[in-house]
């Protein structure tokens, strides 16, 4: 069971030496209790105390890293059930499954689709996190396809096979790239655990129900494996959600170590071959505790909503996302096009830019750095004030791009128009609508 900070403090040297990086033993104990530190950071703790504290010192959910180098991803280490309690830690990885039994052309096409599903949004690069290769032919073919997909995609792999001989062949080909092995089952556990140890790879365990999963993770942990992923082989979408919730609760609230691992999900298992339904179930996995989500394909029309949803769900609720501060060209604006300004709160930017786009009137949108706050909040906090806006305008090249000198400010900050006019002598300050939804009507009226 979980120890409190005070329980842990009793076992520490109480010297406040600071060698752990935290000024006092009590503060260090509190961090340990919350899973924010590792006991090994204290060089002076006694062996008896270390043994007594090992339960509390282990993070309630292990980290698992798949792949190597820049393409590698880490999942796990989650600390809460609800994102308002604390930001989710590692965004889930989403990627497609490719079957080794399909033709070379089909595999090449699937890899190309996977690579093409890449998007830039709010200064983040959104893309597939991995490619899963499933053995549906012989061992040699599995190894060859795994090597081919690894090379052409540049992504970490999830290797899917039940036969240890197939897995062994593929690991001989791509083992050093640290693929995730899927999966150790009750039937093949010894062999798969041995392969994971031999190749130093993370291992997924798959069994029907969390009870059976826990038995397998204990077996793998006893063999020295730390980076495990769990798959409870749920028989329905409803059972999948139950297992995800129970595993997360067991790990965080009961500190039940055998389930303290990230979860891999296969939303297509419950979708009757319907990629739309599969994507909707994948959205549920994004919100509710899927860490590695394997899809039947990575077409852009489904990866875009899923990756944007992931970005939303994994955002720090206390620290809003920011759009890059610059002048955006919407449509194909020319010298006569209107020039509007707003703040760099990502939502403000998205809503204002989509309303301008909906107006079908090309425009320049100046996104001023207001530290990620919305218009009214930024104004109240002194971040969207005449000096800042004027500096933004003067630092930009907008004056050279337009033949007019009209700058349109949000209606919510109409009160700054006079002061802004003083700061921007060459410009006419116009007050736009209060609500973004009224921008199209406003622009159309101006265009006459």
């Amino acid at each position: 069971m979980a120890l409190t900070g005070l329980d842990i403090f009793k076992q520490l040297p109480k010297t406040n030496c600071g060698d752990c990086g935290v000024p006092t033993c009590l503060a260090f104990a509190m961090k340990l209790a919350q899973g924010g530190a590792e006991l090994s950071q204290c060089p002076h703790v006694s062996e008896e105390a270390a043994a007594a504290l090992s339960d509390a010192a282990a993070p309630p959910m292990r980290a698992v890293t798949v792949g190597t180098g820049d393409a590698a991803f880490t999942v796990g280490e989650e600390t809460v059930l609800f994102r308002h309690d604390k930001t989710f830690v590692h965004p889930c990885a989403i990627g497609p499954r490719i079957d080794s039994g399909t033709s070379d052309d089909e595999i090449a096409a699937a890899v190309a689709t996977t690579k093409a599903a890449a998007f830039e949004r709010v200064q983040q690069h959104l893309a597939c996190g991995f490619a899963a290769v499933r053995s549906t032919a012989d061992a040699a073919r599995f190894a060859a396809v795994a090597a081919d997909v690894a090379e052409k995609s540049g992504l970490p792999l999830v290797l899917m096979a039940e036969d240890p001989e197939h897995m062994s062949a593929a690991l001989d080909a791509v083992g050093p790239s640290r693929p995730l092995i899927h999966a150790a089952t009750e039937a093949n556990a010894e062999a798969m655990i041995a392969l994971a140890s031999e190749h130093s790879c993370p291992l997924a365990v798959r069994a029907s129900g969390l009870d059976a999963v826990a038995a397998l993770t204990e077996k793998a942990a006893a063999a020295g494996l730390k980076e495990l992923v769990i798959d409870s082989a749920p028989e329905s979408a409803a059972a999948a959600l139950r297992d995800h919730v129970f595993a997360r609760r067991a790990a965080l609230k009961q500190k039940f170590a055998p389930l303290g691992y990230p979860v891999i999900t296969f939303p297509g298992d419950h979708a009757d071959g319907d990629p739309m339904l599969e994507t909707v179930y994948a959205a549920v996995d994004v919100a509710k505790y899927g860490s590695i989500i394997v899809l039947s394909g990575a077409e852009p029309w489904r990866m875009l909503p899923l990756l944007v949803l992931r970005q939303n769900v994994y955002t720090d609720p206390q620290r809003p996302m920011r759009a890059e501060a610059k002048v955006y060209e919407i449509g194909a604006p020319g010298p006569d096009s209107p020039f509007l300004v707003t703040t760099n709160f990502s939502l403000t930017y998205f809503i204002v830019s989509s309303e301008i786009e909906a107006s079908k009137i090309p425009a320049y949108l100046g996104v001023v750095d207001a530290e990620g706050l919305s218009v009214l909040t930024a104004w109240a906090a002194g971040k969207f004030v005449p000096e800042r806006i004027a500096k933004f305008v003067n630092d930009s090249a907008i004056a050279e791009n337009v033949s007019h000198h009209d700058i349109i400010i949000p209606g919510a900050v109409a009160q700054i128009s006079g002061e802004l006019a003083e700061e921007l002598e060459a410009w006419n300050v116009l007050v736009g609508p209060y609500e973004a939804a009224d921008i199209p009507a406003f622009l159309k009226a101006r265009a006459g």
Partner: protein
Amino acid sequence: MPYTEPVESANGRIREVTVGAGESSVAIGGAAALPFHWFDGEAPRRPMIAMEVFDATPAEWAPALTGALGDVMSDPATWARANVEQHGADMVCVQLASTDPNGADATPQDAAAVVRAVADAVRVPVVVYGCGNAERDADVLKKVAETVTDTVLAIGPATEDNYKAVTAAALGYGHVVVAETPIDVNMAKQLNILITQMGLDADRIIVDPSTGAVGYGVEYGYTVMERLRLAALVQNDDMTQMPMICNLGKEVWRSKEARASEQDEPAWGDAAKRGVLWEATTAITLAVGGADVLVMRHPDAVAVVRKALSGLTA
């Protein structure tokens, strides 16, 4: 180490709100567990889908949307029938967009006639949303409430600016109020308190916590709903125990990602599937957050979300 299922039973329960008439009336809410947490406690029904009809033919809708809806959009009653008979809508949501005084400026009488026609055309409950102008909505919803009295409508949005008029209309004619607040737990709770203080039963309120689409703030609505649900179920706070409605169709179909053609955004892929999934992923996220009624627009999005809602319900 033995594993014990970490079941968490609730201390409170979501209220049941009944809308519609007689045998075709429908109860919403009623769960004693978080959404789809059927393993924790009683969850008597899946969320309902209310499909939209507009009081005037919408302009500039995405081709993926107008193509799927067909030529029903010029007549609200025909559109409502298609929603129910062809697309299996649990409810119909009339959007009185043309009553906007800054737009088509349709009169309260016009609006009431549209709602009357829709209520006559279908045997499912009807939700009525005004245009969002608080003053106009007060007049329009009053007229609607007094015109259609043979079924329990859900009328809204009642906001902090017009809740008195909307609540009075609901009280007078037996309707349910949709209480809308801007993505804030305390404001949602406060508006419920104000409305019940006027004498409306707490089980005649549906909360609209406001929402955005995926990519446009869906996480704010999602999190506010999760917090409201936890307050209702764990803390047993009775002023947070109203069922929730998400008016998401308009948010989704305003977004560039749902609307853009494949020619305009080749990297985003098939426009029809993308648009449907933008609505469907938004809807399912909000359902997982706690929505009891999803106001939706595209028939294919409705179909796939209905399948998912069933699949998530044991």
